[in-house]
């Protein structure tokens, strides 16, 4: 599965429990639109670290990296490219 699809399905399965309607676009802020909360961000980080074999530094926990599907895809791709 393509990276973007993997991330979308993780969010849909784990935060929306299968309901795709709230995730109307890949640019949508997950926090502002009530898709995740602060605990959800930590779960998302745990998922990226385990399923995508990443080590995420504390200073990378910023909305620019994590707050939309677009940002997540760019972030994961960038992390893999520098490994």
């Amino acid at each position, binding site marked *: 599965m393509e990276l973007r699809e993997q991330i979308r399905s993780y969010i849909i399965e784990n935060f*929306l*429990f*299968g309901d795709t309607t709230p995730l109307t676009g890949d640019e949508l802020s997950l926090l*502002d639109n*009530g898709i995740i909360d*602060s605990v959800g961000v*930590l779960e998302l980080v745990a998922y990226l670290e385990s399923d995508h074999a990443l080590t995420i530094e504390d200073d990378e*926990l910023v*909305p620019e990296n994590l707050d939309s599907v677009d940002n997540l895809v760019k972030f994961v791709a960038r992390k893999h490219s520098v490994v």
Partner: protein
Amino acid sequence: MNHRPIHDLLTESADRAADAVALTHGQTDVTYGELEARSNRLAHLLRDRGVRRGDRVALLAENGCDYVANYFGILKSGACCVSLNSQNKLSTNRELLTDSGAVGLVARRAQIRSALPDLVNGQSDLRLVHTDQNDPAWVLPPQIAFSDDNDAAQCPTQRPDISVAEHDLCTILYTSGSTGSPRGVTLTHRNLAANTEQILAYLPVTAEDSVLVVLPFHYSYGKSLLLTHVAVGGRLVIDNRFAYPQAVLKTMVEQRVTSLAGVPSTYAILCARTEFLRTDLPHLRCLTQAGGAMSPALTRRLLAGLPDRVKLFVMYGQTEASARLAYVPSEQLPEKIGSIGIGIPGVELTVRRPDGGECDSGEVGELVARGANIMRGYWNDPAETALVIEDGLLHTGDLGRYDDDGFITIVDRAKNMIKAGANRVGAKEIEDTIAEIEGVVEVSVIGVPDELLGEAIEAFVVPVRPDSLTEKQILAHCRDRLALYKLPRVIRFVDALPKSSAGKIVKAELAKLTER
């Protein structure tokens, strides 16, 4: 002692230092003079639209400069502000609007989006809606007048001449009730003014302070931060991005904040996922913590990691007490870890036996409080009020004991409530929601200790047949009906729930199952 209306705190700070910055949010600074003028404009607009002393006006907004201007504007119109939680589901806020009998709704467009017609249709008491910006797509019933900030900008900036008495209702804050339905805690101007004075008698807050605000203003702890800092003319630095704690830490550095207020999970997350204890914060001098018990391990970690100049105040309170009831003097904290301390100045906090007598040290009883900060009661609910207020005493529902120095430690909660993060959540509301699902025989919900949240919500579900329900099905049902913070973190399917001989579910037995 007579108390002034709570909005006088803003006017007095604006008179003393109109150019001082009251609020910082992102790149925006708002001075006390600007805040005073903006709140006066909204008050005039609400009066012009027919709002009168004693009316209720609901406020639905995220923390921000607008929230504060609108809050004080509503109070200056003579109305009582009904603080709605912007994280609530639409259906919940619709119920609360109806329950409060609000004649007005002041809301940020971002919080209501396309939902405004659904929120206000059928609200028989509602006569006006005010937002920051109109949306041409909104079609409202003809009896509801609409205004936005362009209309408010035409109103005078002088303070309206409205008489407000100290016993007038100031704010209704909805909290989770043990019955499953939210209850409106009614606080008068006197309650909030008294608690503000009581807090300032022990907490060193001055006009030089800049506090980082990550707690919502619709929550009693957030509201007390707002009122204490406005009272002294301090600055509130608002950051709503705590989900990204590193971004918040950056704000602390850039804005040179002098204090931070948090619930246990605030500090747990800062310590676990940021460089908080290793970051040079030369201006920081005070941390406060309330909103549930912080683990002794985390308290020790903070004490060990903070420079000596930073004082840590562990505190205790309830929405029913305006906010604050007890604190541990910071210099005594190292010897009193795990305690909630002593009653704050002006509050009599005691541990009582069921017959009303005061407990001896070591003896477990209920925490009972008296003071000018204790709420008038629950909105339109004399029966629930009578359960917690008796002869002016607030029965907190928390069980605790004195140590030999008179410091109180909480040992249990008498009510069926869960403290998840900053939020008090009634187990029954979640149980009722899950019980709606076809195929659920019975359900019980408990809070289990959690390193980050204090307590995490776990649901035990007995399905009609094994494998007839999935965790996802249950969570999807809950997500449609409950705010995110009320969602169980774990769903456990069990064959039966442990019961007492009287058939009552024994929640303590459920807690043991989670330990395995």
